[in-house]
């Protein structure tokens, strides 16, 4: 035994109270090792902070938008030449017919405020969004009796002007930009000074629909939010009962044999299958084979159900397992059947845990994108919110993460701001769901 220590360590000389070189070295190695650990955690936390900072700093811009307030005269000789207020004839005037009205309105505003500018009228009107004429037309069609009056409107400016107001666009960055000129930015400055152009909160981003890739200023996430909502509804209605039923069988009734083993191994493997594989499954089975409609939230919900089931089954089984056997024994002892003991006693006691697991599974499904791309829930799809439950399930729609992906793909940097803003909304949903799950767990968790 004694020769072991003779081989390695050199013989110690001197006082025990003073550190020798070797101990000092070992101690240095110790603190180095500890430092690596601290560094690793710091790196992780730093990444989290960077991510959150990035999202917040780049996304909050999407919640404000630059607006121009103008008084537009809805002149009768342009919109309703015959003067008989026939809605079909009014509808014949296309958005091109409304453009002169806007041009006049800007001209009048400039005159009223006495702004000195040598910008031609057409260029002045070009600071507005392309959606302004459509907005005017929709208003006139909804209120044909207003023709001939002067009405105050709040128009969106185009995305370059909006970017200028948010410091995304500067006079240097638009050197090669055909859609805006420095002279127009000077004009914008003058209007800002007069209070005609203001930046204010943009509710349409939260509740509106996506817009074509020419009009980033008008794009909103609302309709795809409804798509996500319907998908979550499908997931909740299908995955919760099926998941709970499967877990009850596996945990309480299944005999120990190879079939049960196969099912169990299967479930833990399904939990780790890449999500895109579920997308392929959905495309092949639900769309190509069953001919369910492409891009429908129902199909998305079905795919996400299959994807979430393993998660829900695993967490439900854990919470069923946590209910002590004495509860079951007591129920059986007073004459309950096995089924009654499970449904009347074990299941209610496991409910908070099941609910927590379900919410976490739903949150995971809400953020999932890849399978949705394969079943066509991406692209400029729905411009209106669905009008009924069946429409919401079957008519083409997008989902929040797919909408964000769609924005990130487009060329105009103004859409990037939308994408980050969409992420803020998505994360608000996820944080809320996870917080509810944590609170439920804290509030109702029982230690036996």
């Amino acid at each position, binding site marked *: 035994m004694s020769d072991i220590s003779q081989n390695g360590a050199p013989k110690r000389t001197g006082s025990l109270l003073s550190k020798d070189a070797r101990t000092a070295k070992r101690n240095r*190695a110790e603190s180095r090792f500890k430092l690596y650990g601290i560094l*690793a955690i710091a790196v992780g936390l730093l990444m989290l902070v960077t991510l959150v900072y990035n999202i917040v700093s780049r996304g909050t811009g999407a919640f404000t938008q630059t607006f121009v307030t103008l008084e537009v005269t809805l002149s009768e000789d342009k919109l309703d030449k015959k003067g008989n207020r026939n809605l079909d004839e009014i509808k014949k005037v296309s958005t091109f017919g409304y453009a002169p009205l806007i041009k006049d309105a800007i001209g009048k505003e400039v005159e009223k405020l006495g702004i000195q500018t040598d910008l031609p009228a057409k260029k002045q009107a070009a600071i507005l969004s392309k959606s302004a004429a459509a907005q005017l037309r929709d208003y006139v069609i909804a209120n044909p009796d207003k023709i001939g009056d002067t009405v105050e409107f709040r128009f969106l400016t185009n995305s370059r002007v909006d970017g200028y107001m948010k410091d995304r666009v500067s006079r240097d960055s638009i050197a090669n930009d055909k859609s805006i000129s420095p002279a127009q930015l000077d004009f914008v400055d003058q209007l800002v000074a007069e209070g005609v152009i203001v930046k204010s909160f943009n509710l349409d981003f939260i509740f509106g629909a996506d817009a074509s890739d020419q009009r980033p200023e008008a794009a909103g996430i609302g309709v795809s939010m409804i798509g996500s909502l319907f998908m979550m509804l499908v997931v909740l209605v299908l995955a919760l009962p099926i998941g709970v039923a499967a877990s009850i069988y596996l945990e309480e009734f299944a005999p120990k044999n190879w079939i049960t083993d196969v099912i169990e191994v299967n479930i833990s493997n399904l939990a780790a299958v890449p999500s895109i594989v579920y997308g392929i499954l959905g495309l092949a089975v639900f769309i190509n084979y069953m001919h369910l409609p492409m891009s429908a939230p129902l199909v998305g919900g079905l795919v996400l159900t299959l994807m979430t089931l393993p998660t829900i089954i695993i967490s439900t089984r854990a919470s069923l397992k946590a209910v002590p056997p004495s509860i079951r024994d007591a129920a059986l002892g007073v004459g309950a059947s096995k089924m009654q003991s499970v449904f009347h006693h074990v299941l209610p006691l496991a409910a908070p845990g099941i609910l927590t697991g379900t919410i976490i599974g739903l949150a995971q499904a809400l953020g999932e994108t890849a399978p949705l791309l394969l079943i066509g829930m*991406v692209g400029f799809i729905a411009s209106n919110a669905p009008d009924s439950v069946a429409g919401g399930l079957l008519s083409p729609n997008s989902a929040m993460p797919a909408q964000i992906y769609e924005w990130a793909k487009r060329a105009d940097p103004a859409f990037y701001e939308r994408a980050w803003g969409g992420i803020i909304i998505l*994360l608000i949903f996820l944080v809320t769901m996870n917080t509810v799950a944590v609170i439920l767990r804290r509030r109702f968790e029982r230690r036996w």
Partner: protein
Amino acid sequence: MPTLWLVVSVLVLAAIGYVLGRKRALQSANGNIRELHSLPIYYGLNVAFAALLPALGVLILWLLAQPMIIDSTVSGMVPHEAIPEETTLGLVMSDVRRVASGLDAAVEQGVMTLAESHSLRAEAADIRARLGEVGVALGAEVKAEVLQAAQSYRRMTATGTHAMTLVVALLAVTGLAIAYARTHKDFRARNVVERGILVLLILAASLAILTTIGIVFSMLFETMNFFGLHSWKDFFFGGIWAPNFRGDSELSILPLLWGTLFISFIALLVAVPVGLFAAIYLAEYANNATRSFAKPLLEILAGIPTIVYGLFALLTIGPMLVDFFGKGGLLGVEWMAGATSVLTAGMVMGIMLIPFVSSLSDDIINAVPQAMRDGSLGLGATKSETVRQVVMPAALPGIVGAVLLAASRAIGETMIVVMGAGAIAKFSLNPLESMTTITTRIVSQLTGDTDFASPETLVAFALGLTLFVLTLGLNILALYIVRKYREQYE
């Protein structure tokens, strides 16, 4: 939606059955609950289940089987001469289906009468124009054979749906009647109901198996089709990925696999050291306060959706790397052309995997018995020496399992590589170049206009199957290692 109404009426029937069954049982016991074998609720449920379950079961099976049967019968009717060169039966069948749904739409919108739609002849009427009116666009003129097939397709679908409604309704009523007739105070209703519930539970549990079978078969069939159109040797052993629409695509998985593995390797290079050291610190050094603060924060990283990481890669990390390595960058080199690259995707994926590695390793390190640490510390080893020479070797199999699980995650990850890795398939060792992966190609081959008869689309299924097998293999291996290791100390 006649099917929806069918389901609703069966549900209503079941509800009525519940009330009737409960009432009849109580009547047979003269209103005295004690005379009944089971609680009254079970008699009601028995009748309701008898009306509901067989009917709904048949309905689901019918809905699944009918398209398959009709498809195979109708495609048997299309003569071989009617299939033009360069197309397949599948394409002709999709034409047939489109014409059929067009005719349905025309009848529904009142452009055509039902009788007219059945008696249409391709020679007589300009079907393409008339279907165009109702918003069904057809690529070419409708051939007589296709029209005929479409009409029998419609006839069979209509007959099938009628028959289904009839059978389901009949089953529901018969079930209700039989169960109602059997309801009596001595009837062992609870046992029957519980057996029924047990069957439902078993069905739910076997859905997991069905999903797996569905995954495997849905990809296997299309992969077979793909290998019918494209040589498997080129897929597995070719060196070039170059899909085109002239029909001479080179579709080899190897360059994609290389991109996938390269990006996953970089991701693990980031995630494993950081995750492992974080886990060691949290398990061995941190006090309770630090632990309860840092662990949940790190785990937030795991809960962030991958689309967020994708955007982070595309708009933050990518441009940042270009600032360093790109043209006019801080290092003065011109190594990077665009924001998408292997390094971009790999780094971001690594960040995503940090909590995955750290929480798995944390569990494994904590599972190492305290006695082993005490023994080492008692011999005079420092803490870090204990970790390196005692805890780590003991935890190694588990940590290898954790790394394998992380690798399988990285290989199957989609959004980060779709947004951060680029689209060029090649073999290169330069991490600053953009490369593409298996998952990226699956997405790009299956989105947009897809033609399920071309090898360029079908290759996605072969890629998906390869991906599935690859990740499944890694998972099984990892779970096996982790489980085996756990047994060692329990």
